[in-house]
Each structure stands twice: as C-alpha cells, then as structure tokens.
C-alpha cells in the first residue's frame, strides 16, 4: 500500500534527478551537431522574402550582373555559366589578392573548389567524358599553380607557407578518400571516371608531401639557428595549446558520426595518432627539448588538418555524391558505403517524431 503516491509524484516533479555529467556531455554533442547542421538561412527567411517580393524584384533588376556571377557559383564544368565563373568571376577576385601568402591561400581555396567540382562530376553518370578529362587537366594545372605560389610564399615566411601547404595536402587527401570510398559502390560507367580522377590527384600528392617535408626541415633549422631556448619554450607551449584545442574541436565533430562509418574509422585513426604526437610533445617539453616538441606538434597539426578537411569534403559534397553515399552498395561489394551524417535512427522514426 502506498497511500501517499500523489504526494510522491508531486515531490518527484520538484526534484532534479538528471545526471549532470550526461547533461554536459550531451550538450557538447548537441553543439557539435548544430555546427555540422547549421540553419538554412534561405529557408528560415523564405517567408520574410516572400513579403518583400516586389522590393526584391526591383533589386534583382539592378543587380542582374552580380546575379549572373552569383548564379555561376555552384556550376560544374560543362554547365552554361561555368566559363563565366572561372574566366570572369575568379579572375576579378584574384585581382584583389595582394601579397605572396594571400596569393597562396587564394590558390589553395581555388584548388578546393576544383576538387569539389571534379568529385561531383566524376560521380555523375551523365558527365561527358571530354568534359571530365578537361576538368582533370584543369585540376592538375591548378594544383601546380597552388604549389608554385606556396613556394613563393615560403621565401618570405616558411612557417605560414607550411600551414598553407599542409592545408593543400589535407584537401587533396580528403577528396581522394571520398572518391575512393564512393568508387566502391559506383556503377561501372562512373567507376572509370573516378579512378582517373583519383590517379590525377595521386600524381600530385607526392610533390605536395615533398614540399611539406622540405618546409618542415627549413623551419626546424630556422628554429635552431635563430631562436633562443626561452623563445622556443614560449612557441612550443602556445602551439601545444592550440593543437590540443584544435584536436578537441575536431573530436566533437567526429563523435556524432555513425560509429560504423568509414569516415569515423578514418577520423578516429587520424585523431588517435595526433593525440599520440601531442603526448610525445608534452614529454619532450617536460625534458626541455623544445625544437623536437615543435616537430611533434607540427605532425599532430597535419593529422588534425587532414581529418578536418575529410569531414568538410564529405559535408560539402554535392547532390550526386550524396546520392551515392546513401544508395545501397552492389551485392559484390563488402565494404559499406560511407555514411555521410548521423543515421542514428531511421527516417521513419524521424518522421514519426516530427
């Protein structure tokens, strides 16, 4: 007999029974999830724009030239406005870039665009083979330009140039990984296109790796020759903290991915290796060997950057690539297709929930 059940229910209503540890961990997961799935501004404001339609229409007429440029932003090789994008818009943009380092960053960003385009195009069933070949050639040329600008930037500041080179290497590696994964589940038509694109990327990655290694050596020598122990200590401590923070941030993005996905496995391997490098750096710093600690931190930064770019490459992939990601793999393929986002519950249960 429990005659005071209503009183007990009332007391339970007032009591806090949640595990505060879970609350905090879950909040971090939620924040990471929100970063990966930001609000779609256009959708959120659609009603607002609908009300302002007449004003917007007038604006559109005035901004028609700019509109063409904007419309060309998401075009792919072979599209009507693609020539406008690479021939006009990007040329105009490049005139505003001043300085060797900014130029290198700009060319790496342009390489990232070419990689996104070629990944999407290679995965497309209807792509014209001559268009794909031209796009592969354009990518190769773009990587050469980016490498040259990094070499020029290194003459002035080898540390910043190294960061840019690492980013270029990470972007190339990420798209190669994405293509290799989706190639497993692609049909025979697109398989060949993808394989050719993968070898185009592979042919350039060794040069970038050499550039990165040579810049690392250059920086190491520079530390030994130009910096005192006290300066090295300050720099090592600063970079150690930055790398640990960067690692934590990327981990937050990885833990919400599906546990069985290829991308999570790859990311966990990279981040595990990065954590080891950071731990080694800490040990070396404890023994006052700062130049070697900086070297370990640099290796960690490279692994973190690779993981970050891999996540971006999968998140920012276009419709065709996403379709392949979510379509079932052929029966002869044992390796599952890459899961793009967190398929924690079925679509049915999501619809039920909403």
């Amino acid at each position: 007999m429990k005659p005071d059940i209503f009183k007990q229910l009332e007391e339970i209503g007032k009591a806090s029974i949640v595990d505060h540890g879970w609350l905090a961990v879950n909040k971090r997961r939620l924040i990471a999830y929100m970063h990966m799935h930001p609000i779609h501004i256009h959708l959120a404001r659609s009603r607002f724009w609908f009300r302002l339609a007449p004003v917007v229409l007038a604006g559109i007429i005035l901004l028609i030239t700019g509109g063409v440029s904007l419309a060309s932003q998401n075009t792919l090789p072979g599209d009507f406005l693609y020539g406008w994008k690479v021939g006009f818009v990007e040329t105009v943009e490049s005139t505003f870039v001043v300085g060797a380092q900014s130029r290198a960053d700009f060319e790496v960003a342009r390489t990232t665009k070419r990689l996104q385009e070629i990944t999407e195009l290679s995965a497309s069933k209807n792509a014209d083979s001559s268009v794909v070949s031209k796009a592969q050639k354009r990518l190769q040329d773009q990587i050469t330009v980016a490498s040259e600008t990094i070499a020029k930037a290194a003459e002035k500041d080898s540390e910043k140039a190294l960061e840019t080179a690492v980013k270029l290497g990470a972007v190339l590696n990420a798209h190669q990984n994405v293509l290799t994964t989706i190639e497993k589940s692609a049909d025979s038509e697109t398989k060949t296109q993808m394989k050719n694109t993968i070898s185009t990327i592979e042919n350039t990655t060794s040069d970038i790796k050499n550039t990165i290694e040579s810049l690392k050596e250059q920086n190491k020598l520079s530390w030994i020759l130009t910096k005192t122990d006290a300066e090295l200590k300050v720099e090592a401590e600063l970079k150690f903290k930055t790398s640990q923070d960067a690692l934590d941030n990327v981990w937050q993005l990885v833990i919400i991915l599906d546990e069985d996905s290829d991308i999570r496995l790859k990311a966990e391997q990279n981040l595990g290796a990065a954590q080891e490098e950071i731990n080694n750096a800490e040990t070396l710093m404890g023994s006052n060997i700062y130049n070697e600690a900086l070297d370990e931190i640099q290796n960690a930064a490279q692994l973190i950057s690779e993981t970050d770019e891999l996540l971006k490459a999968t998140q920012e992939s276009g419709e065709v690539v996403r379709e392949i990601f979510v379509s079932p793999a052929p029966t002869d393929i044992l390796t599952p297709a890459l899961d793009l986002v967190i398929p924690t519950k079925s679509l049915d249960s999501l619809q039920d929930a909403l």
Partner: protein
Amino acid sequence: MVIDQATFERIYDDLAPKIFKFCYFRVSSKEEAEDIASHVFLRAWDHVAGGKEVANIQGFLYRIANNLVIDYYRKNKDKRELSLNDPKNPIDVPDKAEFVERIDQQMLVNQVQDVLRDLQDNYKEIVVMRFVNDLSIKEISYILGTSENNISVRLHRALDKLKSLI
C-alpha cells in the same frame, strides 16, 4: 519564433532535465531515457535548422519525446511481450535509480517507478506529464494532439486506476 543556435543552447539548459525526467518515468531505464532525450534535441534542431518556425518550443520538445517513447515501445514490443512470459527476465521491472545522488530521492524515484510500472502506457503518459512534469491540461492536449476534454477524461480514469493500484 525563429530560434538561433545560442537560443537553442539555452532551451537545452532549461528543458533537458525535464525531458530526461519525462523519458525516464516512461521507459524505466536511465540509459534508454538519456538516449531518447538526446535524440529529442537533435530532431528538434533538424526541424529548426530546416528553417521551420516553432510556436511552442516546450510543447514541441515534449511531443517529439512522446513520439520517440512510443517508437521505443513499438521497437521493443516483441521483447516486452516475450518478457511478460519470462519471470526470470521481466522487462517492465525498472532499473533502480542508483544514479540519483540523494538516498531519499533514490527511494522516492523507486517507489514512484514501482507504482507507475503497473499502469498501462496511455495512462502512464498522462500521469507523468501532469504530475511529474507539471504540465497543464492545455499543454498535454497540444503534445498529444487531442482535445482538452479528452485529456481531462483520460486523466480522471488514470487517477482512478492509480488509486485502485495502491
């Protein structure tokens, strides 16, 4: 109401403990309740991030939670039915609330769980919402998508049943 990320974080701080409590007294397992409560906020964010407006965020979160609990029951139906015939592994026996730090609260949670265990699901949901989560009849009617009259009748019957059980 357009919700940005910072607002959503504040909503989480305010409502996550309540949503957890709601789930816990419905599924009787801390781990399952935490899992469902986590998904409630992810689903809600998907909705918000899709640019859709939410007029009543608290009601909206409870509605998702309720649907996910029903989904949980549906998925575990076979297990539940099987367990009813298996005295060695009765699925409906709730976990002891060892995660609650205060002993008196632990006992209170266990006693309430014991009583709610014998209540059928459609009565349990309404009792938990009304008394454990302190929601009004109007709020419950919004969450369950039915009229306030209907909720009042169901609550009355649930209380009768509850009295008969004790």
